[in-house]
């Protein structure tokens, strides 16, 4: 992994440095809050309470976390092969389209478990296909992946609007939304699961796709570090020439990594369409793909780091909404500023403290 300093202990690289970055971002947010006459301590309290203080809040936090794990992993897998996939937005969108199309076609005829399995596959397939094309263009035609994936985000949203407005919209319904899916296509909500075993849990959008996300995180770890393909991906990512010399075909490895990346992003569609919205609609993916980049950067492209970073972002999303709800002089734009600061310090300035810390460790060991 690039950027990691081999001279520093792991806990510093993956623990202390990100933590310092987050703390800095939060301190600057505190100043912003203070400037708009909001007590930063009170704001922090509401934010924490909103994210973790009651069941519904926890549910929302974990629901967002699920999406961030998917998109964070997607970005990370592409990073490992040296590609910057910023098309997570589009891949998530099209993944959702796959779910929607499949469920709209089959929800009357296919039994629930099979349908859910098929729609998960459809999400992966559609997302993978949407990432495969830019991957192919990069591998065989040299079109830069950053440009093509961004363009594919726009294509995805144009395609979705066309389909939702002209083809899939429920007749008589003004909003461009499909009809509601049959209940067989719904993933069980956590609060329903808890209720089934006798525990009362407040309603929230949290559903069992969280388990799918954690499974993906584990799978990504096995794939990247324990398989031949993962080894090839990491080799191409660190040195393409060496990879060629070792008998690896970089183009094919890139295609594989991009397809998996897209499939992971596509799973956002499972959480959103099967899990929460229960109908196909516009903009359900909004923002998760791009936030996934920050999640991957902050998680150092490692599944454990990504799960933790996703949790942080989930907490910021939900806690931020709580903050905007509770305090009349905090509007949603301030919340975006706060999230932006976290992204800035964890993403763009991720090595801000590294020289300092490295020096401290040198002095210690010298």
């Amino acid at each position, binding site marked *: 992994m690039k950027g990691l300093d081999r001279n520093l202990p792991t806990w510093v690289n993956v623990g202390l440095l990100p933590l310092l970055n987050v703390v800095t971002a939060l301190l600057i947010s505190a100043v912003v809050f203070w400037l708009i006459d909001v007590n930063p301590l009170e704001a922090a309290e509401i934010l924490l*309470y909103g994210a973790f203080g009651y069941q519904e809040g926890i549910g929302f936090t974990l629901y967002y976390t699920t999406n961030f794990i998917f998109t964070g992993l997607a970005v990370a897998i592409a990073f490992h092969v040296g590609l910057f996939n910023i098309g997570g937005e589009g891949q998530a969108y099209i993944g959702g389209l796959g779910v929607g199309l499949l469920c709209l076609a089959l929800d009357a005829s296919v039994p629930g478990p099979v349908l859910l399995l098929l729609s998960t596959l459809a999400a992966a397939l559609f997302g993978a296909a949407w990432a495969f094309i830019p991957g192919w263009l990069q591998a065989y035609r040299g079109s830069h992946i950053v440009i093509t994936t961004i363009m594919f985000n726009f294509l995805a949203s144009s395609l979705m609007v066309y389909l939702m407005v002209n083809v899939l919209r429920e007749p008589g319904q003004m*909003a461009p*939304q499909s009809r509601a899916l049959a209940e067989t296509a719904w993933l069980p909500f956590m609060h329903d699961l808890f209720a089934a075993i006798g525990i009362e849990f407040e309603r929230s959008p949290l559903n069992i796709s969280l388990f799918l996300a954690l499974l993906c995180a584990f799978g990504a770890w096995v794939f990247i570090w324990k398989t031949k393909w993962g080894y090839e991906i990491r080799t191409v990512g660190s040195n393409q020439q060496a990879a060629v010399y070792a008998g690896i075909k970089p183009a094919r490895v890139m295609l594989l990594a991009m397809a998996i990346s897209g499939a992971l992003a596509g799973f956002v569609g499972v959480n959103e369409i099967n899990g*929460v919205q229960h109908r196909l609609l516009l903009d359900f993916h909004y923002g998760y793909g791009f936030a996934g980049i920050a999640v991957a950067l902050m998680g150092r492209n490692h599944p454990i780091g990504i799960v933790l970073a996703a949790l942080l972002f989930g907490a910021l999303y939900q806690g931020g909404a709580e903050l905007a709800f509770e305090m009349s002089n905090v509007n949603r734009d301030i919340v*975006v500023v706060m999230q932006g600061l976290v992204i800035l310090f964890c993403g763009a300035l991720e090595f801000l403290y590294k020289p300092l810390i490295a020096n401290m460790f040198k002095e210690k060991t010298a």
Partner: protein
Amino acid sequence: MKKTIIAACMGLTLVQPAIAADFKPAVVYDKAGKFDKSFNEAVFRGAEKFKKDTGVEVKEVEPTNEAQVEQGLEKLARRGSSPIVAVGFSQANAVSSVSAKYPDVQFTLIDMVVDNPNVHSIVFKEHEGSFLVGALAAMKSATGKVGFIGGMDIPLIRKFGCGFEQGAKYENPKAEVFTNMIGSTGAAFNNPGKAAELAKSQFDSGADVIFAAAGSSGSGVYQAAKDVGKYAIGVDSNQNHLHPGTMLTSMVKRVDVAAYSNWMAAKDGKWEPGVEALGLAENGVDWALDEHNRSLVTKEMEEKVNQIKADIISGKIKVHDYMSDNSCKY
């Protein structure tokens, strides 16, 4: 510290039934946010006016994604806010499910209908207002060519365009109507640059009056019209003052009044569920004539437009609603 908050909140939920009957107005904007210079902002103005006139605080929620819409509505309902005004058709599903769960809370939905016993739905007959400004555009046009520029390509915006076209053809059966949509995503409502280019190309094709139903993208159309010395028609709010001499008129949609009077009715205990369709007859939509466009509209035109308005209200002129069958065949 957390424990005290939890305790405080449990306290809140305990006293909730007692305050549920109180008048605590609230509003949930749609995802565009309250400063969209158009639809949501009109509701925001209504809320501000209501606060100023009555001194009662209006609780505002600005969701950033789909899940937060329902979350916001439910949270307000649980805390005893009522009536809760939900802005925009996209909240229909959320209002439908939350209102079923909180039968004692009053919900008011703008721009869409939900048929629950505690929901008041307000919709507008945009096609009627668009018909009027379409007719006026055709009267003003020297070339017999007029243009329509819509924001996002959705049925609601096509409804404006279809009404406009009918109005223009009513006034001048040979009129040619150019139609362009700015884009296919929500961003189309905030893209004045592209709007200006579309306007220029319509002007180049001979159009001399353009109606923009494009949220804050409209400003690009108005500027383009001013640059080439032609005319533009504003939308939602009265935008005549933006470029006097260029703005022929505005098709106003009185969302602010609708929200304001709804809260007022609730305050006086006169809130009622049901569907309210605000058209020309109810002053929900209208064309704007003030000192800024007085010089552009002759007395004869004014009389003609008002005659058409009266004919629509009396039912003599039937304006086809695009959304009734998703086509513009009339």
